[in-house]
């Protein structure tokens, strides 16, 4: 099972980074939005909370296209039946969720130093910010995965992705903003909140894995 998962994950990462349009789009959005928030606030001190919120919103917004397409490409590209014949749907799901998390992490690692620098926060905070950027991106990727899958599976009409995914991700996002603020202020870190973030995203992921076979029972 582990070797199958590794194969699938390698395939997903290859696909997500090979099609450079997704990466280019995400980086482009991240840069444009970072400039848009940094330039007007050039000579005023942005509160750490606002800076954290902007950082996570930019990361999320940059990755929305990639996250949304994680599963839709498989469905529309007609490869999903092939995968169903060869591997468990749970493994395919896991590989896609982790690959989209990797993508989000890459964008977060790119965006975080950019914003710390451009918003005028102390560079010395950066080394402690990067782990939270990684953990937060992983949490976002894991928690939005099942909903992305449901939308792709149901071939939902209209641009419903933000409406349906954001409520799931929002509590995690709020917690991440609080945590990132604590890192930026170098104040005491609420490790309980960090555990809550990880626990919530893992709980959602486990629900997805547990109920996916029931969803995929031949319709």
């Amino acid at each position, binding site marked *: 099972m582990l070797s199958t998962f590794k194969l699938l994950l390698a395939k997903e990462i290859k696909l997500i980074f090979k099609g450079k349009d997704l990466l280019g789009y995400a980086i482009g959005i991240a840069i444009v939005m970072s400039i848009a928030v940094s330039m007007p606030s050039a000579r005023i001190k942005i509160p750490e909370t606002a800076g954290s919120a902007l950082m996570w919103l930019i990361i999320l917004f940059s990755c929305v296209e990639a996250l949304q397409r994680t599963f839709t490409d498989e469905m529309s590209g007609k490869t999903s039946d092939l995968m169903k014949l060869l591997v468990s749907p749970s493994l395919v799901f896991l590989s896609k969720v982790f690959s989209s998390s990797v993508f989000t992490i890459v964008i977060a690692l790119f965006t975080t130093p950019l914003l710390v620098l451009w918003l005028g926060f102390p560079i010395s905070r950066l080394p402690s910010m990067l782990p939270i950027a990684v953990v937060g991106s992983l949490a976002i990727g894991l928690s939005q995965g099942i909903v992305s899958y449901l939308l792709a599976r149901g071939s939902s009409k209209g641009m419903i992705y933000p409406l*349906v995914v954001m409520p799931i991700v929002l509590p995690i996002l709020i917690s991440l903003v609080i945590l990132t603020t604590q890192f930026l202020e170098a104040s005491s870190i609420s490790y309980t909140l960090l555990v809550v973030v990880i626990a919530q995203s893992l*709980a*959602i992921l486990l629900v997805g894995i547990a109920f996916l076979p029931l*969803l995929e029972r031949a319709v």
Partner: protein
Amino acid sequence: MFVRILTVLLPVIMLPSMFYGLMIAGADKELGEMSRVIYFHIPPSWLLVIALLVSFIASIMYLIKENNLFDRIAHRSAELGLLFSIIATVTGSIYAYFAWGSAWNWDPKETTIVVLIILYIAYLALRSSMTNVKLKPKISAVYSIVAFITLPFLMFVIPRITNSLHTDGGGGSSLTAQMRIGIYGMTLGLLILYILLLNLALRIDKKKELSQ
């Protein structure tokens, strides 16, 4: 028969509880008469958890048994849960205005209930956006389960680890014994109302299905 008994019980329990809470039970010393809004805030808060729990369980049962009744229960119970959450939010805002000087304070509990409302609006939006009749109940069921999983974090964990205006994270330890009687009575009444509304909605759904 059961429905008839409940229909009779509803006013028998609800009206006296309301009367007791509004007229007889002592008011909060600091807030005065305005504190009586909690009889319309706490019971809906509890009922929303029950309604969403029923939706959650029905969703799991649907995925296992693939019986459409469970899908209908999950759907209608989620709708009722949404209704209760809106009532709880509005009455909570009234309480907040008098207790803390502002109708909205971004208190963790206030925030989490807004997220909950958005979650279940999203559930209903997801259901209505699906055209595949076979997949719609399955997908809705999984989303309902995922939405419910976030509930403990939203309602119980996060308010307790962040600074909340709600006393004891909203556990209600500052309520007097008299207030509790009124609140429990109202909760029981609302529970009966919930069951009756759910039953009515399911009967309407069944009729629609038969006519198709």
